[in-house]
């Protein structure tokens, strides 16, 4: 049986998603046996980027170079996977879309013409994405399952239950009941509610479920006494680019981004 030709790449990001692959620890070598690693610039010198069956792409597009690299890799691979929140939603760096320009204007490099900054965007703004492994960071378990599934020739399934489902299975008390701004009800699970297990409310890093009820989420948070600006900021921190409805819902003249 010929092995699947696989590449791991990163554009602008924090390298955490690729580390989630390297940090498979006891399972890493067995997993890598299953496929042929054709390119992985983070840990390899020789990177044959001609043809792939699967490419796992970490990071978001923040420069023209990112964009060119992404387009080239898309051409060379049969299947492209957005690995982690930056590739999927743009994650925290894409929150820049929703903040005031004056907040970061002083950091821009106007003097230097060579800097080819582009609006920070998830990779599906430029290319077709076949699968998403969401999360910041993505779940190591999910990466393992994905690889094993495709090696067996099966089609990976995405998980669309909210974080609350798994949170209940972990016997956690509901953080919304203690007035913490938890986005669990509208956020796609599959993370085993890891943040809530650790005492932290869900920030929505895996993006909204298909049937996310934004208006009710906002109402609940408002009732708890959270301000509109705070709610808006939280909703769009990790996955604002995937919630067009949020603009209509919480942006008004006084809260304009």
């Amino acid at each position, binding site marked *: 049986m010929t092995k699947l030709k696989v590449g791991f790449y990163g554009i602008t990001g924090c390298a955490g998603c690729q580390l989630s692959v390297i940090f498979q620890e006891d399972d890493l070598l067995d997993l890598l046996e299953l496929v042929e690693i054709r390119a992985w610039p983070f840990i390899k010198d020789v990177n044959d980027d001609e043809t792939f069956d699967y490419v796992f792409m970490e990071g978001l597009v923040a420069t023209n170079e990112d964009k060119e690299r992404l387009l080239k890799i898309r051409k060379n691979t049969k299947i492209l996977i957005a690995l982690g929140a930056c590739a999927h939603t743009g994650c925290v760096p894409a929150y820049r879309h929703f903040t005031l320009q004056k907040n970061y204007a002083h*950091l821009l490099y106007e*003097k230097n013409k060579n800097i080819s900054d582009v609006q*920070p965007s998830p990779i599906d703004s430029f290319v077709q994405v076949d699968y998403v492994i969401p999360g910041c960071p993505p779940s190591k378990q999910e990466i393992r399952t994905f690889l094993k599934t495709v090696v067996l020739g099966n089609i990976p399934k995405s998980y669309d239950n909210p974080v609350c489902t798994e949170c209940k299975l972990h016997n956690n008390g509901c953080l919304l009941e203690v007035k913490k701004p938890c986005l669990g009800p509208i956020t796609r699970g599959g993370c085993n509610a*890891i943040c809530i297990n650790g*005492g932290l409310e869900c920030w929505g890093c895996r993006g909204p479920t298909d049937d996310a009820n934004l208006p009710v989420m906002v109402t609940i948070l408002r009732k708890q006494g959270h301000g509109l600006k705070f709610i808006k900021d939280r909703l769009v921190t990790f996955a604002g680019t995937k919630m067009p409805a949020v603009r209509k819902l919480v942006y008004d003249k006084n809260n304009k981004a």
Partner: protein
Amino acid sequence: MTKTIKLDHLTKIEGHASLTVKIRNGKVERCDLGSTEGSRYFEGIVRGRQFHEAPELTSRICGICSCAHTLASAFAMENALHVQVSEQTMTLRKLLNWGERIRSHATHLYFLSLPDFLGYESALAMLPKYKKEITTALQIMKIGNQLVSVVGGRDLHPVSAQIGGFLTLPKQEQLDDLTAQLKACRPLAQKTVSLFASLRYPRFERELANFSVYHEKEYAMLTGVIRTGKKDYPIRKYHDYLKEYHERDSTANFVVKAGKEYRVGALARVNTSKDLLAPAAKRAAATWFPSQNPFHTNYAQAVELLHAIETCISILETLELKPEPPRRADLKSGHGIAAIEAPRGTLWHEYLVKDRKIVYCNIITPTAQNLRSMQEDIRAFLPRILTQSQQEIIDSIEKLIRAYDPCFSCSSHFLDVTWV
């Protein structure tokens, strides 16, 4: 005769960087090292956000040192809003920081650096002959990750370490399990030290100021002063002695002290604080340090790995946790600065908070501070290797850059990053 070397995509480093070198008549005319990573403007992103959101947001600056960013921002906020954390919180933060340093050093040593010294393109290519070494690496990385995971709730971007303390605490059986695993890991750390002591490092020394957090009672970590050369400086006054600047035509940002570059990271720390190492690590360091050879950063990391494991065992053996919610901030406004040791060196976070909102943030990462040292090292190192073939020159320079364990993801969120 002019020779130009341009490396557009340096491999086996965190993030993306390039190097342009121009040599004319045997002289280095130009040597520019910089990041090609897109800028993410984290310092701008946190403006206008609530102060307690800073650790979660800034953790996303870096995967491998997310704990360091989380902790530095928590410390800076606590300084700003006068929150005193408990001794228990400090102990847990140490474990978190050491866990991160263990997995980061193991990853760098075995996956990014070792292939250079053994003549392989990657750790994966080493597998047929060196499976035992790679397995050792994975086991050490695992114990580091478990430390972070047990204490912080997740191995990347921890969740429970917050301003004022920890949202949840590890269970006693988890701590006991960690102790047992760390003890089993001791021989692996010893093996790592022996392995990295046996490598042939290029002979290259350049006098540079070491720079790190220093505490007279414990090895460079989370608290103390800045020690550089023989002098100590208060952390909160860093604006007085550090300067960040852009160079118009050059690329990355630079950080200098009194106009001069300095060295941060494992080598600077061992050089400065080697007397404070655990006995086994101190013995390993004895004849090697102080050293002015940047390639010795690798060995310094191996020494720190051993020290980290010994230190965590002794912390865990006496640790008894009691329930304790995070302490709350009474103040709503303030100004706070913190510097801690991240795996790659001193990490600075500074915030100005007004009425619970962040109005100003400045972050200086270890790699930003090392950039100029790296560049000047390359400039000084090049004349020695000019007679080699182009490929050999490239290999040697890459080895030097990797020895610094740079993280360009981190360094480039902030400042100037183009290439010519």
